[in-house]
């Protein structure tokens, strides 16, 4: 007999706090860009209001869905997502932005299938791994099907190409395999071969080497590969302890590209300082803590693995994003969950945390 109680309010609080900071910072960072490109400093804020509303709505909807029903949706959702992923390459449907096919245009709306697939992948993997929890001990029967699924999805995403999302998907899968109880030898083997794959990919295309290692010494190529890293550091550095003050960013005057999306964390560091940036890091810590806590307290393997997957996916994406901005990871174009301006990404993240909150109602 399931006991229903209140969802994890700390988790909800962390999510809403991040959402609120994001909403303010999207306005602060996009005002100049909106004014210059659209003669309207509120241009991005208006759109963001709609996305946040849609996101909250999505969270409420998924929160209400019964987990067993959700589990039945898993496979169909995955098939739809794969179709969408293929569709981005179809001329007329796919929309090319900055040399990558990541979007599908539906009238005035455009959606990002990679966001759809991230969520459905976590759902399907949790479902597969929970079918027979003991199969995970076998590499062929337990680990390989999950790896195969991940390989298919990662391959499709690399076609766009979208290195950041691929990384998130790979890392999330890895986390779920570990949580599901895969053998230590398998895990180490996978980690080793993953590393080998990365080395091989770099070796195959030397430009990646330059791009990837530019973050170590961005000043070597300040106008090329090092440009974004430098501009992010030039935002973080002057922020100091308390920041230049809300709205006082100078790097937002078109120095820092993607400052309201991928690099919004730099804006936080510039305007709100080390204190503000650390607050955001701590909120993600809170999110990860409460998310994993939900997973640990789940009373069945499926909801536990689902909670692990959702928490890991969002936390990993946040860590990669903040790592890129602060210059400890190479530049990969992914958004900061809850905070970056962004349509599909925000809505599907909220859809995911709705599920997480749902699970938190059913734990011990």
């Amino acid at each position, binding site marked *: 007999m399931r006991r229903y109680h209140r969802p994890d309010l700390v988790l909800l609080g962390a999510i809403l706090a991040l959402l609120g900071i994001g909403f303010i910072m999207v306005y602060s960072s996009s005002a*100049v860009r909106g004014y*210059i490109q659209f003669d309207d400093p509120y241009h991005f804020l208006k759109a963001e209001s709609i996305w946040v509303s849609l996101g909250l709505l999505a969270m409420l909807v998924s929160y209400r869905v019964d987990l067993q029903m959700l589990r039945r949706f898993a496979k169909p959702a995955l098939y739809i997502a794969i179709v969408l992923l293929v569709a981005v390459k179809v001329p007329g449907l796919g929309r090319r932005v900055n040399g990558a096919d990541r979007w599908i245009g539906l009238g005035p709306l455009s959606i990002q299938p990679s966001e759809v697939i991230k969520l459905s992948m976590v759902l399907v993997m949790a479902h597969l791994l929970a079918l027979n*929890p*003991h199969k*995970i001990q076998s590499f062929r029967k337990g680990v390989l099907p999950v790896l195969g699924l991940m390989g298919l999805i990662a391959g499709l995403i690399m076609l766009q190409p979208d290195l950041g999302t691929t990384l998130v998907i790979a890392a999330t899968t890895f*986390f779920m395999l*570990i*949580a*599901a*109880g895969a053998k230590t030898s398998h895990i180490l083997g996978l980690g080793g071969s993953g590393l080998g794959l990365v080395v091989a990919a770099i070796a195959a295309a030397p430009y990646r080497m330059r791009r990837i290692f530019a973050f170590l010494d961005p000043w070597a190529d300040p106008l090329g590969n090092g440009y974004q890293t430098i501009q992010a*550091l*030039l*935002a*973080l*550095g*002057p*922020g*100091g*302890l308390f920041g230049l003050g809300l709205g006082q960013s*100078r*790097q937002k*005057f*078109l*120095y820092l590209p993607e400052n309201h999306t991928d690099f919004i964390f730099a804006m936080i*560091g510039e305007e709100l*300082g*080390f204190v503000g*940036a*650390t607050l955001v*890091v701590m909120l*993600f*810590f809170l999110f*990860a*803590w409460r998310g*994993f806590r939900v*997973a*640990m307290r*789940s*009373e*069945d*393997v499926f909801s*536990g*693995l689902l909670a*692990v997957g959702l928490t*890991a996916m969002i*936390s990993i994406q946040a*860590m990669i994003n*903040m*790592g890129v901005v*602060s*210059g*400890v990871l190479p530049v990969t174009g992914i958004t900061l969950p809850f905070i970056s301006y962004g349509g599909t990404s925000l809505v599907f993240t909220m859809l995911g945390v709705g599920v997480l909150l749902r699970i938190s109602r059913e734990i011990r």
Partner: protein
Amino acid sequence: MSPLVVMRKRIAFLFFCVCAFLVVLIIRLGFVQLSQGADLRKKADDSHYRGVPVAPKRGNIEDRNGNVLAMSISTETVYAIPAEVRQAGKAKETALTLSKLLGKSEADIEARITKRSALEYIQKQVKPEVAAQIRALALPGIGTTEDSQRYYPQGTLACHIIGFAGIDNQGLEGIELTRDSELKGVPGSILQEFGANGIPLPQAEHQYLAPKQGNTVRLTIDANIQAFAERELKKLMAGQGTNMNGQSPKSASILVMDPNTGEMLALASTPGFDPNHYQDADPSARRNIAVQNGYEPGSTFKIITLAAALQEKKIKPTEHFFDKGAYTVLGKNVRCWKAGGHGDQTFVQVAENSCNPGFIEMGQRLGMDTFYKYLREFGFGQKTGIEMSGEARGILANKKKATALDLATMSIGQTNNVTPIQLLTGVSAVANGGTLLKPQLVKEIVGPSGRVVTPFEKEEVRRVISEDTSKLEREILESVVTNGTGRRSFLPGYRVAGKTGTAQKVVNGSYIQGEYIASFVAFAPADKPRLAILAVIDGVPFFGGAVAAPVVQSVMLDSLKYLGVKPDPQAPLVPGKPMPGLEFPPLKKAATVPSVLGMPVAEAEKTLSEAGFKVQTDGQGETVLDQIPHGDTQVEEGSNVLLYLGKDAAAPTLAHWWEDDDEDIEAINSLAGRVPISASPLGQ
């Protein structure tokens, strides 16, 4: 173990991994934001702020008394920030407006204000009124900044010393060049924060970095003494030189030095130029011939020969020497300038007569080694180190190849090539008690607040002769003026020592006939010299004393009076008896110049032409402010009178400075025998 238990353990591990990464992240943020923050902030500022330079005001060049010779007047520079112009989208209208105000082509302005650059100058040296109009229009992307333009209020005065600065206020010649680093100051700027698109930030702060103004360079030159010298040069070039028969020389220099300190009080050469319009000047007129040209000094150099002979005790002043009219060296005769020779003389008389055989005897007694030793000691063949670019070294005959005949001609100032500044420096050493000094042009450097940054320091090069030798030679040279060939520079009431010189010109390696370089060097008062003056006049048909001595006399008298040197009651008021056989070219009939001061030009010209004079004018205006020669002086009939024109007859001029407020006027007027040299019995 149940799968749930395994899962919980594994999740704890995963959470630990996430925490570890977040800790790394916070450490990294702390490093970037706190430890590297200041450094990154500076880098960010460097990329955000762009400066409009504010030019420093270039320091003045002044004479020793603070009279301004070069100054900077405020102008403005109009600039554009092309990104702002493009953003406003009114480039065409802006260019049209500016072209009307600046008188520059519209197309040119449009090209500039839309150029792909952060900052573009449209026009420099814009008048402040025009710049104010432009500011009032508040054209988008157009701004103005302070600038300055060089102005030489005294025009041609001391042009070769001052030199000039170019359009960017960079020193190009003269003191403007040699002291550029002190004059130019340090530019400041107005810093403004810009966005990456080149548009200034809306609430951007402006940072004003004040420029550091340039220092003032105060010269050793005295503008008045310089003016006396230049007046004489003008007179010469106008064909008004005494004994010049109305001819003009090719070029001339007058150098005035304080022999006790090495300070140059005047360094004037003609032809000259107006540094305000240096672009229009003939490059040859920009040449500072007193420093950059060498010449054979002729008899003026005998001062050095005499100094060496006296110092080495090779002669005694009272010792007798017989001049038979020529001196035979290596089978060749070097003739005395006087046919038949001067006969029996003491060595004092040898000097008075400028007797060539007498000086050749001195040279032969000194011998090659000692003579060359003194040449070097006195600084010939080396730069004096005066602060002028392109100083010549002069050329000494190769000692290894020199023969006794070369020694003979060198003793009388031929063969060797020296610069006027070398000769005057050497003569100053003789005059000042025996110490060779470095000739200097800069008295002190004064900071913008008036504080002296670098004071003047006398620079002694070496002692060349003893105090006693110096005193003895001063007396002999005074006797040259009082009794000998230098009498044309005799100043009643003052003790003047000096020596004439005439040298043949060397053109393409051989002497040319009928054209000479006349020179005269003098110092006064002879017992305690205050001034040493050298005049070198190139391209005259006469003996040095006849042409150059009056020039030196005139500058000497005016300068001594100006410096407040009182006439010496012990000094003779008339020169000694003219020597038999001193021959000078005959002069034309003398005529008295009428005074036309204060007259309108037309009337002055009429008066002068009725008196039989030709008229030249200098300056612009309707009124005669000054004239050369002055009224009531006697000059050759039918020669030129130079009129200085101006607008205000009341404006004082240097030429009449002593008539304003000098209590010594009565004293000098009461002295007998002060007559214009051209009308003196000597010239007749």
